[in-house]
């Protein structure tokens, strides 16, 4: 189960680029190329700073003008998909920050 205070990090094996607001991600583990829509691309961009889920939700709620509930539901579904594909890992933020 995903918790909102968990930190989301890109799998360091992935290579990615964001072109004109769209992310393209290469996963060498399975030789696949992934393309995301506007929201997914923005989330992938945010992952560069290893945010918590609640921080991602706040960004999406604010930037895409969707309700908090909708943003949370969408972000969790997307991150779960990325976890299942091995593209991100979940962890806890260290106390030192």
């Amino acid at each position: 189960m995903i918790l909102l205070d968990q930190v989301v990090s890109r799998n360091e094996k992935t290579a990615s680029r964001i072109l004109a607001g769209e992310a393209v991600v290469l996963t060498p583990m399975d030789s696949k190329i992934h393309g995301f829509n506007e929201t997914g691309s923005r989330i992938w961009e945010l992952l560069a700073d290893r945010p918590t889920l609640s921080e991602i939700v706040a960004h999406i709620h604010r930037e895409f003008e969707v309700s908090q509930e909708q943003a949370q539901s969408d972000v969790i579904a997307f991150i779960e998909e990325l976890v299942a594909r091995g593209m991100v890992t979940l962890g806890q933020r260290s106390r030192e920050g």
Partner: protein
Amino acid sequence: MDIGDMCVLIASPHPQVIAHIQDRYHDFLSEEAPDFEIEMAFAEDADPAEYLDVPHEMLSDFIERSRAVEKRLEEPGAPSSSAVYWWGRQPSPFGESEADALAGSKPKVAHLGHKILFQRSDFAGCMDIQAGQGRNIFGKNMLPFAVESFLRICYSFLAVEHGGLLLHSAGVLRGDNGYIFPGQSGTGKSTIASLVTKHERVLSDEMVVVRIRDGQQLVYSTPFYGTNESAEQNIRADLKAAFLPIKDDEVYLKETRPAQALSKLLASVLFFGQEVALNQHLMDISAGVVAQVPFYEIHFRRDDSFWACIAERERMEVVK
């Protein structure tokens, strides 16, 4: 040998290996100073693990599968080795599933420090990019296929090392303009290459090298062909545009979004590297190509009418 302005010196104690290379890759032979050196030996010459200087257990895939292939080939009525090792040119008499199980279409790759080990059942090879050296070992029955497979993989790594890409793509020269038609099997590369008119010349129906050198985008022919051997010469041309082939009833060009172009380009790159830095480098090179080369979808029928769209685009470029 020179492909994409990358020279490889090939050495072997076996005259038949050298004779094969001189014959098969005749138009790509060169006397330029090599960027990389490769030795090729037969499996009977040496212990494969010792020859490649890798742990024995890492070669299990090659050893087990090469034995299975040898055994299968010795059975009464078995087809020749050419039926097992094919590059998608014709259906295997073994049946595709058995041929795939025996030969395997994808090599198994492992990184050992700065060395890269790759193996299928027809060959095992190792490249040390930093040292500029590689070795390939294979059963002598597998001569043409093991050499071709190894060279394709070697050049895929060398291309990235030199800031380029070995692409699954048809390449066409039209006047001085080079064009690529990247795509995986079945997208129409061979069809496009077969539909050239007197105004075009085929660089390859299967694989080209793309490089950006001194800010100039270049496309190179390769000896790695699919269904026809029309790329008989080592040719370099300015890369003017990339067309992603789409079979359709209508004929037209459509500009692609940058991310769409990058995804399609990456999907067409021959590359097996697993290392993080190598893949990031691959991504950077590909993004550089997308930034500098116009990409279009080219919707085409099985006739040469799509060249009119490309000619129209050339006229628009001149007007600009």
